[in-house]
């Protein structure tokens, strides 16, 4: 008998179905060659039943007629369900289905209604039958009593039924004996291998015919089936044809046993799966070159496919991923997603998909976290639910994006925090960037102008705009399209002109002008500092000029003292000697007076030329000012002058030479009194600046002020506006010298209300290097 697990060829599906009208019409009962079966099986010892595709019994041999007590009559067709039932299925409906599924039936347990009316157990073997054109015509069945012997197997195999079954088998097929010598091969196998049956049967082993890698090994499918007495289905093999061409096949093998269940041989059917393998190779190539990790798992969560990229991600060869449970590899988050998707899948919704991103340490050996974009698809394929997982490693993308973001942030910070103003506009003049520097210089807030068109007239005059555009197109200030360090005047929001150093460039993309950038530095502070430096330089020169004149004068004065002493000594003596002559006395007195005047000049010169403060003692500046004012206020010159003394009361004690400073204040007050011709107002103020620790003093008069032409000369020695003999021109020089020696500064300007204002600043502490300790 034949046993095995061959599946039915699909095109016979439904051949026994009573409801299959198409097949009934196409395959009429008249096609069945009943006479052939009569000649073959009429005298066959076992009951043989032949039925057409509509289930009508068309032939019963003698044994069958005897057993069932029935005969074929044209007027009353006999259905085989009238006397055959499948065990457990009285309608026998499952029998055709099984025959169609398996292509043949071997030893199926059935009940047969004997001529006695009893339903007895029988074993039924059946085979589909076809005409010469291969069309299905019906089937032939042999029944034996369940307990009866199957008879001589060799006889059975070589019998017409078996030959019919084997020859009609739709796949390449062969049988072997226990030595693996081929005992039969069908036409299909002849076509596939290129060998004829005569060359092979009883002459070659299956290994010699097929030459697979597994031949002569324990993996030989037919050998395994015979040894293990177990059918094997769907093993992939590569056979070679006569020309040596490789042919991928799916092999199905089983053993052949005798009635004693001894293995007496084996058979193998192969199916050419070249298109499938080629398709798999194409898909495999696609999955291998894919930058995504791809794996596929069956419903039992076992991985059945993984590409190399996926292997790289798990740091394993992809082959080692096959067979693993996905829970070994995927994080809980993904497993939950898969679980959820599996629940949603049903025939109406055969595919479920979800995209997610995860950041995780993908492998324990990887210290750094990596980011993945994951696509999980759960799909219903046939009756199986397959899970596909696609991983895309986006760690580098994120890193690049992060670096790009950082670089952008860095550049934005540079632009934002630049002290220079930076303005970027597009080709329509719409402001794209307006940094803090631009806000500060131009007085607009960024949110007021960004995204809006800014009229050039808002920030510079039309003339400047035209000039900038002209220069931008020329070579005068940098190459065309650029301006470098052009001095222009911008207009602030409040209308104030702002001189700036202006650089500009046209921004291009693919030779197309898409905008422009302007960078400008505020020059106001620079100009102010330059002006101050120039003023300081002038002041320094003035100071040096005054000092050099002072040194010269002091040197001369010292030498003059001796001859003056001689003149005065002799004049005094002459006055005494000529006391009786008034005419001479008067002349001598004039000599003495002029000599004393010289002495006064020399005294002032020497005071002026002193390079150091006489002493350094603590004193109250307000007290010194008051004392100077009180002493002078009593003198006749000041009788018609109003003193306004406005002194800050809490000025800290200062150190320096109060005597010298009293001389300063005295000189300034006398100077003011003279300037007002003895009539007017003198305002004296003192203020303390705690931050600078400086005292500021002002002596203002209500006179005519100082002629601006001589303003910068009034501190020079011997410079005086008084007539000869009325002033030495040293009073303000002495003032200047003393203030300088105290580390202070003195300036003069005219008041808008008239009169001159002398402003002095003095540090609380007189600098040490200006002190000469004399006591």
């Amino acid at each position, binding site marked *: 008998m034949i046993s095995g697990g061959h599946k039915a060829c699909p095109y016979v599906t439904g051949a026994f179905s009573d409801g299959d009208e198409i097949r009934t019409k196409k395959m009429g009962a008249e096609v069945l060659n009943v006479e052939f079966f009569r000649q073959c099986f009429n005298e066959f010892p076992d009951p043989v039943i032949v039925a057409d595709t509509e289930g009508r019994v068309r032939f019963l041999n003698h044994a069958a007629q005897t057993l069932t007590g029935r005969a074929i009559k044209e007027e009353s067709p006999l259905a085989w369900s009238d006397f055959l039932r499948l065990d457990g299925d009285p309608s026998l409906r499952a029998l055709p289905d099984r025959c169609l599924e398996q292509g043949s039936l071997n030893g199926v347990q059935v009940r047969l209604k004997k001529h006695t009316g009893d339903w007895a157990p029988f074993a039924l073997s059946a085979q589909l039958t076809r005409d010469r054109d291969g069309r299905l015509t019906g089937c032939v069945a042999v029944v034996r009593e369940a307990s009866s012997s199957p008879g001589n197997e060799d006889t059975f195999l070589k019998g017409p039924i078996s030959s019919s079954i084997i020859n009609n088998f739709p796949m390449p097929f062969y049988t072997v004996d226990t030595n693996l010598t081929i005992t039969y091969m069908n036409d299909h196998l002849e076509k596939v291998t290129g060998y004829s049956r005569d060359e092979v049967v009883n002459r070659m082993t299956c290994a010699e015919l097929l030459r697979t890698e597994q031949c002569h090994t324990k993996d030989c499918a037919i050998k395994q089936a015979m040894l293990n007495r177990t059918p094997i289905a769907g093993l992939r093999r590569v056979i070679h044809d006569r020309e040596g061409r490789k042919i991928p096949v799916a092999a199905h093998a089983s053993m052949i046993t005798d009635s004693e269940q001894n293995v007496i041989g084996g058979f193998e059917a192969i199916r050419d799966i070249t298109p499938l393998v080629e398709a798999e190779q194409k898909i495999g190539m696609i999955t291998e070159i894919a930058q995504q990790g791809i794996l596929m798992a069956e419903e039992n969560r076992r991985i059945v496919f993984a590409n190399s990229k996926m292997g790289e991600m798990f740091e394993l060869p992809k082959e080692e991923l096959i067979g693993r449970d996905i829970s070994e590899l995927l994080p809980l988050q993904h497993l939950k997603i898969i679980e959820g998707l599996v629940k949603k899948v049903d025939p109406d919704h055969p595919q479920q998909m979800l995209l997610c991103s995860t950041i995780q340490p993908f492998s324990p050996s990887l210290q750094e976290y990596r980011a993945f974009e994951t696509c999980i698809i759960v799909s219903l394929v046939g009756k199986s639910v397959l899970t596909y997982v696609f991983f895309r490693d986006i760690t580098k993308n994120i890193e690049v994006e992060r670096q790009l973001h950082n670089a952008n942030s860095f550049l934005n910070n540079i632009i934002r925090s630049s002290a220079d103003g930076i303005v970027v506009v597009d080709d329509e003049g719409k402001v794209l960037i307006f940094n803090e520097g631009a806000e500060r210089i131009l007085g607009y807030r960024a949110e007021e102008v960004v995204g809006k068109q800014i009229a050039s007239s808002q920030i510079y005059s039309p003339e400047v705009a035209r000039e900038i555009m002209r220069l931008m197109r020329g070579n005068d200030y940098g190459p065309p399209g650029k301006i470098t360090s052009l001095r222009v005047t911008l207009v602030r929001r409040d209308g104030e002109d702002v001189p700036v150093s202006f650089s500009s460039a046209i921004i291009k993309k693919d030779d197309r002008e898409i905008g422009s950038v302007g960078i400008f530095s505020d020059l106001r502070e620079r100009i102010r500092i330059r002006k101050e430096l120039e003023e300081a330089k002038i002041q320094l020169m003035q100071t040096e000029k005054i000092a050099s004149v002072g040194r010269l004068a*002091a040197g001369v004065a010292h030498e003059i003292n001796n001859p003056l*002493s001689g003149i005065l000594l*002799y004049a005094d003596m002459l006055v005494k000697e000529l006391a009786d002559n008034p005419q001479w006395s008067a002349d001598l007195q004039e000599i003495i007076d002029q000599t004393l005047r010289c002495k006064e000049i020399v005294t002032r010169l020497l005071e002026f030329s002193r390079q150091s403060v*006489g*002493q350094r003692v603590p004193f109250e500046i307000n007290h010194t000012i008051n004392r100077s004012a009180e002493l002078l206020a009593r003198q006749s010159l000041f009788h018609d002058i109003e003193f306004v003394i406005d002194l800050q009361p809490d000025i800290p004690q200062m150190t320096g030479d109060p005597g010298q400073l009293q001389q300063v204040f005295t000189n300034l007050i006398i100077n003011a009194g003279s300037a007002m011709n003895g009539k007017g107002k003198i305002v004296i103020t003192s203020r303390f600046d705690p931050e600078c620790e400086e005292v500021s003093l002002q002596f203002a008069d209500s006179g005519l002020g100082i002629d601006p032409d001589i303003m910068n000369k009034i501190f020079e020695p011997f410079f005086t506006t008084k007539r000869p003999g009325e002033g030495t021109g040293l009073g303000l020089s002495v003032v200047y010298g003393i203030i300088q020696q105290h580390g202070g500064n003195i300036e003069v300007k005219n008041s808008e209300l008239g009169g001159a204002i002398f402003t002095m600043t003095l540090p609380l502490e007189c600098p040490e290097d200006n002190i*000469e300790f004399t*006591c």
Partner: protein
Amino acid sequence: MHTIIVVDDEKVIREGLRRLLSLEGYRVLTAENGRVALDLIRSGCVDVVLCDLKMPVMGAVEVLEEVRRTHADLPVVIVTGQGSMDNAIECMKKGAYDFVTKPFRTDFLLSVLKCAIERLPPPPRLQKLPF
């Protein structure tokens, strides 16, 4: 008759003072520098020394130091220009009787010398001290 020694490198001053002081009834010795003056002082007949501050060979400071060592009670009056005021003050600290700044009025000089001879305190100063 009291003896005053005038020490000054300026001949005009020496001779002028010799004439002035002689007219006032003093015996006058003159010296053109400190070294000559010290020789005369050692003769032991000098009552007051009138000494210019700055002189070649030996100035008033050295003269003062030597006189203080050999003639502790001998008054020394320093004559100085205003540019050397600080040195004059230093001399006062070293024991000078008084100082007179050039150019001086004869009346003031005579009053200083008179007080010095009589070992009286110096007369009130018309010139203001710089401190």
